[in-house]
């Protein structure tokens, strides 16, 4: 059985059933959403299952969706199976009020700084991380700058017409 996206999806659905949602396959990358309690189980399954073998962690980052009530923060994992050269993306959503997500550091050493960066900019609290502190910003900072509530420009400016020039 070759590692094509349909087969990956089949394997995952067989194991986790209905709990994995929002399947999509755009730009040749399979993407899905997992419940946040399952993130380590999914990572482990993808890592250990001989047919899947996603053993290279390309990237961890987060996205802030202020409009998704009680699941504002989205942690995105990019995984890569180097043997079959297949990539995969999966997301877990977490409320920004209590942004606890299990840390993947036990599985991937590379997750250490990626999670620190994600914590630094989004405030995702990676439970089980050995050294979760700020990495790029100063230690004294008390907010998480990549969240959408912090606009890049001073919003009190009145000399700019945002209807025309803003987002």
């Amino acid at each position, binding site marked *: 059985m070759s590692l094509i996206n349909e087969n990956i999806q089949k394997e995952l659905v067989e194991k986790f059933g209905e709990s994995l949602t929002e399947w999509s396959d755009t730009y040749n990358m399979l993407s899905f959403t997992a419940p946040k309690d399952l993130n380590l189980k999914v990572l482990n399954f993808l890592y250990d299952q001989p047919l899947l073998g996603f053993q*290279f962690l390309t990237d961890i980052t987060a996205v*802030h969706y202020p409009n998704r009530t009680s699941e504002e923060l989205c942690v995105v994992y990019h995984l890569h199976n*180097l043997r079959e050269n297949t990539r995969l*993306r999966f997301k877990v959503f977490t409320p920004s009020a209590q942004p606890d997500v299990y840390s993947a550091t036990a599985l991937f050493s*590379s997750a250490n700084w990626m999670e620190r960066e994600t914590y630094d900019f989004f405030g995702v609290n990676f439970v089980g991380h050995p050294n979760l502190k*700020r990495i790029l*910003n100063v230690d004294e900072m008390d907010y998480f*700058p990549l969240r959408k509530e*912090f606009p890049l420009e001073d919003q009190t400016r009145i000399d700019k017409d945002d209807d025309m020039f803003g987002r």
Partner: protein
Amino acid sequence: MSEHTNIRLPEGSIEKQTTTVNLGPTHPATHGVFQNIMELDGERIIKTEPTVGYIHRAFEKIAERRPFYQITPLTDRLNYCSSPINNMGWHIACERFLDVKTPKRVDYLRIIIMELARISDHLICNSIVGVDTGAYTGFLYVMQYRELIYEIYEEVCGSRLTTNIGRIGGFERNFSNTAFVKLEKFLKEYPGVLQEFENLFTRNRIFIERTQGTGKISAERALNYGFTGPNLRAAGVDYDVRVHSPYSSYEDMDFAVPVGTTGDNYDRYQVRNAEMWESLKIIEQAYKKVQAFKGAEADVFHADAPAYYLPEKEDVYTKMEALIYHFKIVMGETDIPAGEIYSSVEGGNGELGFYLISDGGRTPYRLHFRRPCFVYYQAYPEIVQGAMLSDAIVTLSSLNLIAGEMDA
């Protein structure tokens, strides 16, 4: 800073047997803004704690306010030793996202520029390893050819270090004849220079003693630490984005992926040198293919994508359609699809990824750079643990850590 436990002396600190040394943030041997708080026993490193972020410039946040074509200058400043690769990586990510097909000539021209950038990147890295092992000559000797590469950039895009080269869909202008003349000069003279450079180092007894067996990392650890690029290949894993998921018509090129075995400083040096030879081969092939275009095809330098590619200024003033497109692009009226894409290229240091989420607005909803340096620098404490301080310096430069890429 006060939180660093290894700085705080234990009670009755006169008993302390080890020395704490701050290497950096600015130190001539770190070649960039890095801080390492090292716990030393004599000259041996017990542990080290890297601190990064001194030149963090919040590019990901800034990108959320910028239209797609204005993000290119941000990517320049990631790995500033090979900014054209970053620029092209961003353009390629956008083109994949917007489904713009570039003509073959554009692809080949891009390959020429990207491989020149790779050569200049590896050249700096390897010659700096030379400097850190006590051989300054090689560094100064190869500088003139980096200069020639920069002159080619200058001829193509007008700037040298932070290039902002190319546009979504192609190049901003066609290559001038001077650019090709300079490229020919480079292709003719550089092999001799690289050979001379190798003669200075490869069999140099002092260089071998300093680099072989130091800064070692196994293939398993390297993969677990997310290594990519020359550093991973030096450990023996033949992963190269140019081969695994070809972009910009790399599949038309015939080249080898050099791999090392031990993942030490010497292997990293060897892999980078071998890659420079391969890059030369690629440039020669691409240049031949560029020359083979005849007639109208020989002047193509951008894709036919008027909705995304800024029209010629002359046309903006004289043609209605061009004026409309110019206005739409600049004012952000162009329809951009909603969606997300992860696109990566083989940067000078490894897999440079762009994770782009668009909500259909004028600017990205979220843009994340996967910077290879940032990912593999976290392995540094493990690599240098138990090593001599002077070997740690060589390891720092042979990993080719670029502060700009790390801090984004």
